[in-house]
């Protein structure tokens, strides 16, 4: 009986919203193989309504894909002894997505109010949690900016305003580029629809990105059986060295 009640509640929550997202990804699994050179996933969906379209402002769509969250140490170089550039101060950001791409139909500020951004952590700066950040120097913002700048340069943090195509306020689609330097793990794709900068509905789905084939095998071996991996590396090296020597004397003879 209790379970039935819970089920009713679950169904009831989205029903409260007059508009509901139905969406999917072109693929739910991405394999990082030996020849992995980045990938592209299509995020597409529609808005289902059981009432006429509301009179309020036009609908906007915000799509974000977020990689596994990790702690990051950010180090700053300073000139020491008047000549040499050395890592000196550092800050620990305890929870930053390894990858974050956000695409919108219109510029972010028009799609989402600041309050909604704070609540749903949509923009990159909000997605990086610096709660409890141990800052040794008291320049927290500089370090967060540096993190965003470096990861943006590496294609790991992306903002694509206007990249979501929306048709008749119902169908939407966008493509998210996954660069080759991805961290494997469970990714989350999230879609928000907003009206008058207020979030109407949220949809989330998982995207599994993992190493496959020999990449997976080598990575796991190197971390779980480091000793045997080391021995294997040495064996391959010695075998290669021996073969090179044998080939050399064969060509000489």
């Amino acid at each position, binding site marked *: 009986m209790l379970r039935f009640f819970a089920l009713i509640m679950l169904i009831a929550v989205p029903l409260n919203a007059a508009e509901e997202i139905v969406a999917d990804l072109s693929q739910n699994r991405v394999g990082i193989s030996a020849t992995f050179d980045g990938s592209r996933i299509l995020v597409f969906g529609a808005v289902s309504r059981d009432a006429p379209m509301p009179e309020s402002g036009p609908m906007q769509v915000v799509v974000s894909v977020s990689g596994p969250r990790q702690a990051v140490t950010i180090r700053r170089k300073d*000139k020491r002894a008047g000549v040499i550039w050395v890592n000196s101060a550092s800050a620990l950001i305890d929870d930053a997505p390894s990858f974050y791409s956000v695409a919108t139909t219109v510029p972010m500020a028009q799609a989402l109010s600041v309050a909604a951004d704070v609540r749903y952590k949509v923009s990159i700066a909000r997605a990086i949690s610096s709660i409890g950040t141990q800052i040794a120097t008291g320049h927290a913002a500089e370090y967060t900016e540096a993190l965003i700048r470096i990861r943006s340069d590496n294609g790991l943090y992306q903002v694509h305003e206007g990249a979501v195509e929306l048709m008749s306020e119902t169908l939407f689609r966008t493509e998210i580029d996954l660069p080759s330097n991805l961290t494997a793990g469970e990714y989350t794709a999230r879609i928000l629809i907003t009206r008058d900068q207020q979030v109407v509905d949220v949809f989330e789905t998982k995207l599994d990105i993992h190493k496959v084939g020999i990449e997976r095998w080598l990575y796991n071996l*190197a971390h779980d059986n480091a000793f045997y991996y080391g021995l294997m590396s040495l064996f391959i090296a010695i075998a290669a060295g021996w073969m090179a020597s044998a080939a050399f004397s064969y060509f000489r003879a």
Partner: protein
Amino acid sequence: MQIYLPIAEISVNAFLLLGLGGMVGILSGMFGVGGGFLMTPLLFFIGIPPAVAVATEANQIVASSFSGVLAHFKRKTVDLKMGGVLLIGGLIGAYLGIQLFNYLRSLGQVDLLVKLSYVVFLGIIGSLMFVESLNAIRRQKKTGSAIIRKKHTWLHNLPFKVKFRTSGLYISVIPPFFIGVFVGVLAAIMGVGGGFVMVPAMIYLIGMPTKVVIGTSLFQIIFVTAFTTMMHATTNYTVDIVLAVLLLVGGVIGAQIGTRIGVKMKAEQLRILLAVLVLAVCGKLALDLLLQPSELYSLGAGGGH
């Protein structure tokens, strides 16, 4: 063709790696050096994380030294007893080097340690070689006299004297032991075999005959770099076997070509070329440390990784 390196976790052009391996292979064939001291900085330049570059290069040196030492065993130009003393020192040095490496890694200063070591050693060795080979060319032009080596130094008065039959020496084990320790530390923190330090030390400090020097140093390098590889693989997980194999293939082919080029050139010209090359790499690394970097910040794994 892009290839994803499982440990370095970046995608690199496979032909670039084969080419780098081949280029360094040609140079090592031409000059008879291991090439680790050139390959590791080149790997930094193409964006391989220094910790991965150092550990992987150690693994690659095992292969090239093993290939080299076989020929020396056939010619009986390996002093196993001397090699053993150098090796004991080398293993202790490598162990200490890895501890230092990991300690500085935890402080975020490992890049500085590795790059500074390169600047210092490439600078010293490059300048010495340059001056030496210039003098040699000048001497050749003037007269034709050979270098007169001092026969007896304070090094010969140290205790624990042992007979090294293959080298024809009766000397203390202390100098070779400490040379071994020093080279072991370099192998661990620089990802090099250390031949460029060990060979001159064996000739000028210990006074070993030149014909057994290369074989004996290769013998020591195999075991020290194998030990370093194991230490890096088990404590840092930074040995990238895919990277190592790609460099190896290029290196093996390059070394064959290089040996053939080397035969056709004069020794002094070769040494000057090598000295210039070493100084160029040193200069590039020094500039990286001295000029203001375009990005002052760098990212590392957070907390206890």
